[in-house]
């Protein structure tokens, strides 16, 4: 074997080992709180300090967490129900939104970043509303809907330069990816997935089911 061959093979080996090492390291540090069949998930994974709350319970007893994808149709279908529930319960429940963009939705990740960029200017709730109420207009488009989202930022009167900068900032993408990673470790497989006080709601089909579950939690 020539010196060149030896060095080449050594280098390939080093690259493979480094990548594998980083992956293992990453896997070990990721919080693991996989739940199956209604087992409680570590609340620290479901609700992070930087997670977005659309309402906060005064007594902190009932927390509803939704992992959602702004481009998913069932999430948009659940949106009016959530809106009504928030109006009804107000400060009796904490409602937390976590990003869980599905890779097959071309603009889901970008939409999540747009929401995060708005959140950086304290307008998460407004962007969340705009994204769901206009999903028909931007959803399932093959091209990047950056212009549309910047348009929403303009509507909200955000600092557009900052919005654009935050949209492209790798830190924003990382923030979205962290939510997704938490969802995965909590056992989320699709969207929307709800957790009520740490337990995944697997039997909820209608708004009535969701209301009944919340009422039970408030009573219990």
């Amino acid at each position, binding site marked *: 074997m020539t*010196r*060149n*061959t030896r*060095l*080449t093979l050594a*280098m*390939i080996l080093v*690259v493979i080992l480094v*990548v594998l090492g*980083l*992956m293992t390291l*990453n*896997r070990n540090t*990721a919080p693991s709180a996989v739940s199956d069949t209604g087992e409680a998930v570590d609340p620290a994974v479901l609700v992070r300090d930087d997670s977005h709350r659309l309402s906060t319970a005064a007594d902190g007893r009932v927390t509803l967490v939704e992992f959602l994808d702004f481009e998913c149709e069932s999430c948009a279908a659940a949106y009016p129900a959530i809106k009504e529930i928030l109006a009804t319960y107000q400060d009796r429940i904490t409602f937390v939104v976590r990003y869980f*963009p599905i*890779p*097959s939705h*071309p603009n*889901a*990740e*970008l939409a999540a970043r747009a929401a995060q960029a708005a959140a950086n200017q304290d307008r998460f709730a407004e962007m969340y509303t705009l994204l769901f109420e206009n999903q028909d207009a931007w959803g399932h488009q*093959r*091209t*990047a809907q950056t212009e549309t989202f910047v348009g929403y930022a303009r509507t909200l009167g955000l600092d557009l330069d900052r919005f654009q900068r935050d949209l*492209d900032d*790798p830190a924003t*993408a*990382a923030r979205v*990816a*962290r939510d*997704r*990673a938490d969802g*995965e470790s909590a056992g989320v497989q699709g969207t929307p997935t709800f957790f009520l006080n740490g337990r995944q709601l697997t039997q909820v089909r209608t708004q009535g089911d969701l209301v009944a579950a919340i009422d039970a939690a408030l009573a219990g």
Partner: protein
Amino acid sequence: MTATLNRRPDTAPDTGFLARVTAWVLAIGGGVGLLAAATLTVEKINLLSDADYVPTCSINPILSCGSVMTTPQAAAFGVPNPLLGIAGFAAVTTIGVVLLAGVRLPRWFWLGLQAGATFGVLFVHWLIYQSLYVISALCPYCMVVWVVTIAIFLYTTLHNLRQIPPSSPLARLAGIAGYHSVVLVAWYAVILAAILHRFWDYWSTLL
């Protein structure tokens, strides 16, 4: 006077292992690049004729031709980049096959290839930068082009470095040729590291 001294540098025998490798890199690299460029051209035509067409290489938000192909960077010189690729890689393939046939090409010809390969490799690195940091998506066929363009440039350059007369102060550079595949792997490793670093959050969610 020995035969060695009579030889002009541009016709120096280059029939060793590295010369064969260079010929194969040009022939196969050119061929693979040609296939990738042709596929991208077909995908571009499909996209143009049907706005809802989803390219075969749009796998997820990161690995996606569709989002890359529709950017201004995809037609950097006014014509779609893959058209440049079809012309360039066809020529490189031909040159590789000619070399495999045992034809000895004159120095000016090699320098012409060097000019083309240098343009190609600079263009490809601009595209890598755009893809990673501006577009934020990777297009698999484009990455095939990155891989072969770098190899073609490296082996063409090493060939030309080996032709530098020993009297020239630059002649020592030809020594790099002895470590050709080390240079190639190191080059790829840097780009791989940049890709992993840029999209680490995404890759890690796939685990």
